[in-house]
């Protein structure tokens, strides 16, 4: 039985400028102790997916339209607020992108660390403080026994993120959702933070959902991958499958953008264009307008079907482009075409 099974999760925002389809029918599952990486650009809906699971979406404009998220035998999306509060911070914890704004500056770290414990366990303050100090030590904060009483602004960004991790894991949850935990940090600190997450995960056997735009990060730490675009699933599978045999044009293009995999001295590759406007309905594959592959007609209908490439590896099979060739060939041709145009002008 998977720890978490999400089926057709759909979250829309009803704004005065239209209905924003932030998450449009996303499904995935997660086993105990597994790490799932959700990858996509800004606006792909990856963060909103996680907020939807925790029901942290502001309900007036936002609404979870349909779908189920079975966790531990219950549907997260249909729980009462009371039951939900028992899950949050206890069975499922979340850490956020910006450690500078995600910790309350008016309260001491100790207060915020023991809060989850006091909320979910019957524990006295002294014991809770003890655990808090332990938690800080486990994430590698020196002098934990005195620093625990500091205020957040006395910590650097990287330290604060460690504190957030400590806060999230102090109750030893079954699942940790990490929403771009390293994006706001220096590159040098990023690796450290990922190490800490990995290490604590091993210690506790926690499952992790890692949300990121950095495909390289996913390669190093995840078991499974879900590639999102325009609020929809483009491709999903194990890390090996996605990296060695990417099927969807978007996944292939994303791989091309990883700096460390590119030739030194060449211009960095980026996918031209902007993400789609999800307040307008999308016909067919969401990536179609930006797809570098040769196009066959205009997409119609709602969305392409999910096809299996190999066991455990699915992709959103767009029928309106010819993605049989490897992407290098297509990109090389694009360069040649561009050069021809330039020569033609001259």
């Amino acid at each position, binding site marked *: 039985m998977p720890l978490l099974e999400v089926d057709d999760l759909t979250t829309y925002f009803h704004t005065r400028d239209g209905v924003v389809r932030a998450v449009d029918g996303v499904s995935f599952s997660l086993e105990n102790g597994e790490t799932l990486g959700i990858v996509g650009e800004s606006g792909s809906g990856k963060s909103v997916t996680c907020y939807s699971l*925790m029901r*942290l979406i502001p309900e007036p404009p936002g609404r979870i339209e349909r779908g189920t998220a079975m966790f531990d035998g219950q549907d997260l999306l249909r729980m009462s607020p009371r039951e*939900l*509060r*028992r*899950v*949050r*911070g*206890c069975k499922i*914890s*979340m850490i*956020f992108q*910006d450690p500078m*704004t*995600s*910790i*309350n*500056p*008016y*309260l001491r770290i100790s207060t915020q660390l023991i*809060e*989850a414990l006091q*909320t*979910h366990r019957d524990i006295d303050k002294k014991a809770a403080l003890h655990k808090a100090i332990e938690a800080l030590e486990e994430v590698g904060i020196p002098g934990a026994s005195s620093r625990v009483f500091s*205020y957040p*602004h006395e910590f650097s960004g990287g330290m604060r993120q460690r504190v*957030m991790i400590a*806060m*999230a894991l102090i109750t030893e949850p079954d699942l940790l959702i990490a929403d771009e935990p390293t994006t706001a940090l220096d590159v040098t600190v990023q690796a450290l933070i990922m190490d800490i997450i990995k290490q604590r995960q091993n210690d506790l056997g926690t499952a992790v959902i890692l949300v990121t735009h950095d495909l390289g990060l996913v390669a190093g730490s995840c078991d499974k991958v879900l590639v999102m675009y325009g609020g929809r699933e483009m491709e999903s599978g194990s890390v090996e499958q996605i990296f060695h045999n990417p099927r969807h044009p978007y996944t292939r293009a994303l791989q091309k953008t990883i700096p460390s995999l590119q030739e030194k001295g060449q211009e960095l590759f980026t996918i031209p264009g902007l993400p789609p406007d999800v307040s307008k309905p999308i016909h067919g594959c969401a990536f179609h307008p930006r797809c570098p592959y040769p196009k066959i007609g205009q997409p119609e209908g709602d969305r392409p079907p999910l096809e299996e490439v190999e066991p455990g590896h699915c992709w959103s099979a767009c029928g309106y482009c010819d993605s049989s060739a490897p992407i290098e060939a297509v990109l090389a041709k694009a360069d040649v075409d561009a050069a021809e145009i330039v020569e033609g002008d001259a």
Partner: protein
Amino acid sequence: MLKFVAMRLLQGAFVLLGIYAVTFLLVAATPGSPFSSERAIAPEILAQIEAFYGYDRPLGERFLTSLGNFVQGDFGPSAVYANRTVTQIIAESFPVSLKLGSISLLLALLLGVPAGILAAVKRNTWLDYVPMSVSMAGICLPTFVMGPLLALVFGLILQWLPVAGWYGPEFMILPATTLGLYYGAYFARLTRGGMLEMLNQDWVRTARAKGVAESTIIWKHCLKGGLIPAITFLGPALAGIISGSFVVETIFQIPGLGQWFVRAALNRDDFLVLGLTVLFAAMIVVMNLLVDIVQVALNPRLKYD
């Protein structure tokens, strides 16, 4: 912290000196003098004024002499009321104004702050619209309109409360309510704004993600930061209550400092004006210092300034 307080007190002393100087100059610049009015001034008063500093002396000398006297606690004689010194007048009226002022301020806080918190928590519902509309009405009805209206309704029509004088606790109700409602309205709006800003912060989302109950989020996480705009306003609120007292004491005939100030200004009772102005300024300086101390206590980031 001690250094902070000492610095601020020193600053305050300079501020008071500045206010004294400005007031002195303004009063001196006013055409005429207590002697030029058609009222005959009693010779005793003339003598006292002469003793205090003498009107024929040059400006600079007058300034320094009176300043010297001031610092020693001698504020001079009233130029209009025979046989009464400014100190006496202040001593009689200060307790009255203090009572009125503190009750008004307390009322303003007790009405405004909870209303603001409620409005923020129940944003965009009736519990938000109603208190905020009422507070908007409160801001638009100045004390000299609200006062007479309240007096009319509760005093003359319903006959529930007295409208003039200061002979017992029931005499405080209408005037304190007039002042209190006005500043309560400000506190309500400021608190609502402050709480809303707190509730929109990312760390509230983190707390929710930890499963913390909504009420805990409001009281434990948001209140400290949310109260800051209201606390900051305490200084200006006190200044406003002082100037509001000019009006309220006139309307409800309360023997407080406010009434004295207006009369003194209009009647060229120079020393009284000087004494009262410096007193008011001192009260505000002290209040601002207290406010700053509270702010530092509430906001840990300020400790390191």
